[in-house]
């Protein structure tokens, strides 16, 4: 008899548990950003053709030279990348070394894009089949990775770099030298 009385409360308890679950979902909506698991790991090896005519292949070898870098994944076809361009120029002026990876892009289109929006890049690799993008655990364009002087990925910035992000990025790059 006693167990029956306790069991009678079970549906209410289950209902309250579901109510709690659903309302917590309402208060804190699902986050759809995909965070790369490569942060803290070495930059994967890669060899990409350069987007600039007459320049040799872009490889990951030069990354561990003691200088921290910002690796920017972009595309001339990508609209938020235009919004991000002034911030990249500001970072370059602040002394940040920026390497570019153009995803599914053509050299001519990249050239036009840089002419219009400024060219902050040291080197630009063409990632035709997004092989490097997937190897980095990146899921969209634009995204930026901060690489320390030993070639280790230390941070990921998802989405375009906004003016308010610039000081923080410079701080982080100084800290991971």
């Amino acid at each position, binding site marked *: 008899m006693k*167990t029956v009385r306790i*069991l009678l409360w079970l549906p209410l308890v289950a209902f309250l548990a579901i109510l709690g679950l659903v309302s917590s979902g309402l208060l804190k909506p699902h986050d*759809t950003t*995909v*965070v*790369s*698991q*490569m942060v803290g790991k070495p930059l994967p090896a890669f060899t990409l053709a350069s987007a600039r005519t007459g320049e040799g292949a872009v490889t990951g070898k030069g990354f561990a030279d003691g200088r921290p870098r910002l690796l920017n994944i972009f*595309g*001339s*076809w*990508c*609209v938020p990348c235009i919004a991000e361009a002034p911030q990249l120029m500001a970072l370059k002026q602040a002394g940040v070394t920026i390497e570019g990876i153009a*995803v*599914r*892009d*053509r050299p001519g*289109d990249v050239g036009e894009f840089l002419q219009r929006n400024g060219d902050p890049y040291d080197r630009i690799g063409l990632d*035709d*089949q*997004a*092989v490097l*993008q*997937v*190897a*980095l*655990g990146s*899921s*969209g364009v634009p995204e930026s990775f901060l690489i320390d002087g030993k070639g280790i990925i230390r941070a990921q910035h998802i989405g375009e770099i906004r003016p308010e992000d610039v000081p923080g990025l410079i701080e982080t790059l100084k800290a991971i030298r």
Partner: protein
Amino acid sequence: MRRRFALAALLLAPAALRADPVLAPEPLAYTQLPDAKQEARAQALMQTLRCVVCQGQSIADSDADLAGDMRAIVRQRIAAGESPEAIRAWMVARYGRWVSYRPTVEPVTWPLWGAPLVLLLIGGFLARQAFRRRRRG
């Protein structure tokens, strides 16, 4: 009518306006492997890997550019003789456990595997109580 005009204008707009990549997709994104056995293995894996763009779909179902690139990577690696589980582990190392639709057995997923057993036990207990009562009554 105006909406139809807008749609026509959008379809006729140059690629740059639509902000789509202009490069043709990697052939293996949309072409099966010549070896049927390898293709079957690639298909089975692709159906259990999540597209990181349209996050409710597998890369086999999604038409996103990145899903196509991930399919190409899966097919290339299968063709090179890599095992499907090694490729799954490679993807998980990049995008997290979440990228795989097939949960692995490890401490974090024990509740997931254990829940059906626990529910079955509770159901069995409840049924036993109910039958006992009926026999008595």
